[in-house]
């Protein structure tokens, strides 16, 4: 998919990123596009369960579309956040060993929190 966005001539003349910069940019945009409707859905969802007790919340999250879209939201948000943070870290964190350390930390944190959040949604949704 990402390859299609770059022309053959551009590749041949070495215009643009020589490595994985374009792919990073593309995934950031792809997740951003997904996050526009997902964020609006998420806001509506949170408003509908604001102040709800556990049973009401579990009933809401137990609906297939709600659980599914919540997992889509979590996946896109954590991936997008991780990538945005990588760009920020590359711009401002020096020296390079510190940059690498912070990047590793952010990546691990994003994956761990994202996966634990998805598992939590599944636990609530499937417990009924």
């Amino acid at each position, binding site marked *: 998919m990402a390859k299609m966005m770059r022309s053959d001539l551009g590749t041949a003349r070495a215009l643009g990123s020589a490595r994985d910069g374009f792919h990073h940019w593309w995934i950031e*945009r792809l997740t*951003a*596009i997904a*996050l*526009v409707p997902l*964020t*609006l859905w998420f*806001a509506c969802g*949170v*408003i*509908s369960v*604001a*102040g709800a*007790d*556990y*049973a009401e*919340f*579990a009933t809401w*999250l137990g609906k297939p579309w709600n659980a599914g879209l*919540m997992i889509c939201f979590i996946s896109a*948000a*954590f991936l997008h*956040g*991780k990538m*945005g*943070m990588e760009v*920020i870290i590359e*711009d401002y964190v*020096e*020296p*390079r060993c510190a*940059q690498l350390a912070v990047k590793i930390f*952010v990546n691990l944190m*994003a994956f761990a*929190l994202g996966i*634990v*959040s998805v*598992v*939590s*949604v599944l*636990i*609530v949704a499937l417990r009924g």
Partner: protein
Amino acid sequence: MTLLEERLKRGGPVSPHLQVYNMFALTSFLSIIHRIFGAALFVGTLLFAYWVISAAAGPSAYDAAMGFLGSWFGYLLIFGWSFALFYHMCNGVRHMLWDTGRILSLPEIYKSGYAMVACSLTLTVVAWALGLSL
């Protein structure tokens, strides 16, 4: 050797740092806020994770989490996170329009900047009005 020194020595490209901009022109100000809010949203995912993890832990943990999130401090965090979320989303749409080559003239950038701030404020106010009234 810092990355900047390394790049200067190699003669490679050096990206501009914040101090080269007039940070309080509307254009650069909105752009800097976009980044700051993006980073804040990432840190704020801790709050989101706390919410869903406590729900998974069961009703009593969920009630405890609701007690914290329903306190004035919890409200403050959620309010900040919600505004940052709407702002980053609206400005993200603006960014993606730029990516297609649209609205790149200076008057359009100012106009879309004001529109984006108005949209994100409206979304935040409407969301909280609905959330508190329902």
